[in-house]
């Protein structure tokens, strides 16, 4: 086969204060027709920069220093701006990371999808629209005939990402660049998008460059992987070889960071916990409404001293609202929160300083949580003054102590957040909460904005702190594999309902609530062919009659693969206890092994019903 893309000696630099700082140091790789190549690395590794260079484009402040990018025997880097415009969107097209931002909010989807075809005059408007509808259908989008008439805000994130694929393919480009196209999506949505992408890429024999930080996702999509670090290629090999026999140390560390290990101390810890009776923090019958919409319903939760409780769910499941209600930033419409058995006021402003001190919050995004104009010392000194009345030398010494606690050097105290790396900022964010000497820390997706390796180090640090300070955590995350590995107890939320609750290790083997099952099956595994073999979101859902109106049925009814006519669409589900100890909100008591036939399930359920 001929080489379609050949990159040699590519160097890109960013101009800062008059000097050029190189960010890509001479990249060489090539790509055959019909091949999918993945560029993988952490943030700052230069993967997106390289991908954009293939289109002769460099983001603000960056510029391509030298090298060549041959696509179909044309050197893209030697083209004039007008010639580049002819190539972009025609020969090479781009699928951006955040479709929500990359779609123009004030134009209809169809206008934007066919825009490249209009610019490059590859076909008439009518033909382009017909072709777009065909692509919508191939990408398994709902209402392919009509979806183009909508505006971007009227469709979901996963749909937008697929619509963007249609936008990229409308001109039948020789090369498609996919820049982290599923990173912003929930795992359950990611799987749908990946399936759709894979199908069109394979069917059309598209040549593609797939940029990602996630090896497991890349393993599903790519034929070949290029591993990048600090703008340099570490390893370039077939996907199979990279996964099975990685050569470079860095590749090995990436592979090992992907698999969180169950901590031994969690189990020891729990035995100790059983002695104490009153939980440190308790949430009883909590309900939160935003206007008429109930975002949390009937939530019960206990957190013991020194324990870690994980809360997982998709975006919109109410997990952040739960944490915000506990700290008093959101007021519940029903229910109470107890600290050491004593009720807490609903609003943070009514709580005593001592109560505030004991419950601390670590926000998801350290970039926005830390004031960019304050130095690290000022950020950490504020809670020390507020909660402990510290001043002068004592305060300064404590700041240094706190920095040491989160494994940062004392010299960092003088710096501002903008001068720190993502991992360092998250450590400061954590140290700020620790400054209050809390009993419990609510951690809202603290690792999701970080690279895998950096995130793993933060988790390590948190486990360490727990041992040292006997602090409890409420750990909010969308990543079930991580939560089950580090938490003593896990709560699964689905659209405001607690659908499952149980010990962390019980999430390693079935049975589960059907939603938990879906979450677990949707986490990409680091092996080729996983995407084809997993059953998540794959099978057709059993058909049921129209749900009974005016009854609060199971929240998961619309997406459940175990739903049943006459039961799930008629009766309110109750909480039942599984043999392994987990509590689920479901009618079925349940599918002890995955893959069990439907009949067996029914027999079991009928037997249950008879016994009741």
């Amino acid at each position, binding site marked *: 086969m001929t080489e379609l893309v050949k990159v040699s000696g590519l160097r890109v630099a960013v101009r800062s204060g008059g000097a050029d700082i190189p960010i890509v140091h001479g990249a060489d790789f090539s790509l055959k027709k019909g091949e999918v190549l993945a560029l993988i690395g952490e943030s700052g590794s230069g993967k997106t920069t390289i991908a954009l260079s293939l*289109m002769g*484009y460099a*983001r603000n402040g960056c510029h391509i220093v030298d090298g060549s990018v041959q696509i179909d025997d044309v050197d893209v880097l030697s083209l004039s701006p007008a010639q580049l*415009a*002819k*190539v*972009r*969107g*025609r020969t090479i*097209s*781009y699928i*951006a990371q*955040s479709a929500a*931002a*990359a*779609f*123009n*909010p*004030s*134009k209809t989807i169809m206008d934007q999808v066919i*825009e*490249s075809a209009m*610019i*490059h005059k590859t076909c008439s408007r009518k033909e382009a629209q017909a072709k777009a509808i065909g692509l919508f259908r191939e990408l398994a989008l709902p209402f392919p005939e009509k979806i183009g008439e909508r*505006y971007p*805000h009227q469709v979901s994130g996963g749909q937008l990402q697929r619509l963007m694929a249609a*936008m990229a393919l409308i001109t039948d480009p020789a090369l498609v660049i996919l820049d982290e196209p599923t990173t912003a999506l929930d795992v359950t949505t990611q799987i749908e998008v990946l399936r759709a992408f894979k199908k069109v890429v394979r069917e059309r024999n598209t040549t593609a460059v797939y940029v990602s930080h996630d090896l497991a996702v890349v393993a599903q999509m790519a034929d070949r992987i290029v591993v990048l670090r600090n703008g340099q290629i570490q390893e370039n090999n077939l996907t199979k070889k990279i996964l099975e026999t990685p050569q470079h140390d860095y590749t090995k560390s990436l592979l090992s960071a992907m698999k969180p290990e169950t901590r031994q101390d969690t189990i020891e810890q729990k035995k100790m916990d059983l002695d104490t009776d009153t939980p440190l923090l308790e949430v009883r019958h909590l309900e939160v409404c935003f206007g008429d919409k109930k975002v949390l319903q009937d939530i019960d939760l206990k957190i013991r001293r020194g324990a870690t409780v994980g809360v997982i769910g998709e975006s919109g499941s109410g997990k952040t609202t739960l944490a915000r209600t506990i700290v008093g930033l959101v007021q519940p419409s029903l229910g109470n929160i107890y600290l050491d058995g004593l009720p807490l006021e609903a609003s943070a402003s009514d709580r005593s300083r001592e109560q505030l001190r004991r419950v601390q919050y670590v926000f998801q995004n350290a970039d926005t949580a830390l004031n960019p104009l304050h130095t690290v010392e000022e950020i950490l000194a504020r809670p020390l003054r507020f909660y402990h009345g510290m001043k002068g030398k004592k305060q300064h010494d404590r700041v240094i102590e706190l920095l040491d606690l989160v494994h940062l050097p004392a010299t960092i105290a003088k710096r501002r957040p903008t001068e720190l790396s993502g991992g360092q900022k998250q450590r400061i964010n954590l140290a700020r909460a620790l400054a209050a000497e809390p009993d419990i820390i609510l951690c809202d997706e603290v690792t999701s904005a970080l690279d895998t390796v950096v995130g793993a180090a933060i988790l390590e640090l948190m486990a360490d702190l727990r041992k040292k300070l006997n602090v409890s955590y409420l750990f909010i995350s969308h990543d079930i594999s991580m939560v089950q590995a580090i938490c003593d107890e896990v709560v699964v939320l689905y659209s405001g309902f607690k659908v499952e609750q149980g010990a962390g290790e019980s999430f390693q083997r079935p049975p589960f609530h059907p939603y938990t099952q879906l979450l677990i099956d949707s986490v990409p595994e680091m092996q080729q062919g996983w995407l084809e073999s997993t059953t998540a979101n794959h099978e057709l859902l059993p058909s049921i009659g129209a749900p009974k109106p005016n009854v609060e049925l199971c929240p998961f009814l619309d997406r459940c693969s175990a739903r049943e006519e006459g039961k799930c669409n008629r009766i309110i589900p109750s909480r039942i206890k599984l043999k392994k100890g987990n509590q689920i909100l479901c009618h079925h008591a349940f599918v002890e092994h995955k893959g069990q036939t439907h009949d067996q399930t029914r027999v079991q359920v009928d037997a249950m019903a008879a016994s009741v």
Partner: protein
Amino acid sequence: MNQTISRLIINRIGLGLLTLLIVSLVIFMITNLLPGDAAQELLGQSATPETLAALRSQLGLDLPIYTRYIQWLGGLLVGDAGYSMVNGMSIMELIWSRLPNTLSLAAFATLVSVPVALSIGIFSAMYRGSWFDRYSNMLAVFAVSVPEFLIATIAVLIFAVKLGWLSALSHIESANTFGEMLKVYAMPVLTLCSVLVAQMARMTRAAVIDQLSSPYVEMALLKGASPIRIVLLHVLPNALGPIANAIALSLSYLLGGVIIVESIFNYPGIATLMLNAVSTRDMPLVQGCAMLFCFGYLILVLMADICEIVSNPRLRK
């Protein structure tokens, strides 16, 4: 138009009416606080207290202030702003005789300034940092900071005194042909535009630059769209709201703030009418003019708001 849009627009109109009511109260109170009244002004220094009192009761000035306010407000609602205390003419008539002049001056200034300002703003945003951007920016700062009476005076000095091309005073009665109109309007419009264009261009530039940094602009560029296409089809629809507001704020100045321009060129508009009314203590006329300015201002802001609401796709169905 769907329900959300109509509800939002009705909301804005309601708020506008409320503002108008509050403004009417404020105007009425303030004009009553001014020293001296029409009776004193009419009778002059030599008036005896008796004749003053007689004239006051004849003019209704002896009634309590709230009665006068309600009478005045009721009149406004049916389109009767009362009578001038100086010459006894209907205030509506006085205003109607001047309004077309002010509106035509405003219209000319708008016709010239808006397209010029938009083009300058858009081009300087597209070529940010270029010599065009820098010079237009410099010029804009210069135009905004030089007082308009200076610009007007210099314009008179050059075009009327030195070159003799134009008349220093605006005789709008003599403007029958298009050429004559140009001559009459050239200098007032030029003076007004120099301030307007600068303001609008700077705000347009900021709105466009804000949008140009969005990811969807990068996406359009990577689809091979030309810079002109990006600005016209992608950026402008999203920058419409802020730009419409900038234009409305600048243009509202044309209704009330042209006093200096009208008096320098002796242009028979509303602003000179109001100026004369203030100097003769003709309070009903002052109040009527002030209400008119406020009304015009609110209409412009309302139009900008509607532009912003309608251009927001999230409110469309």
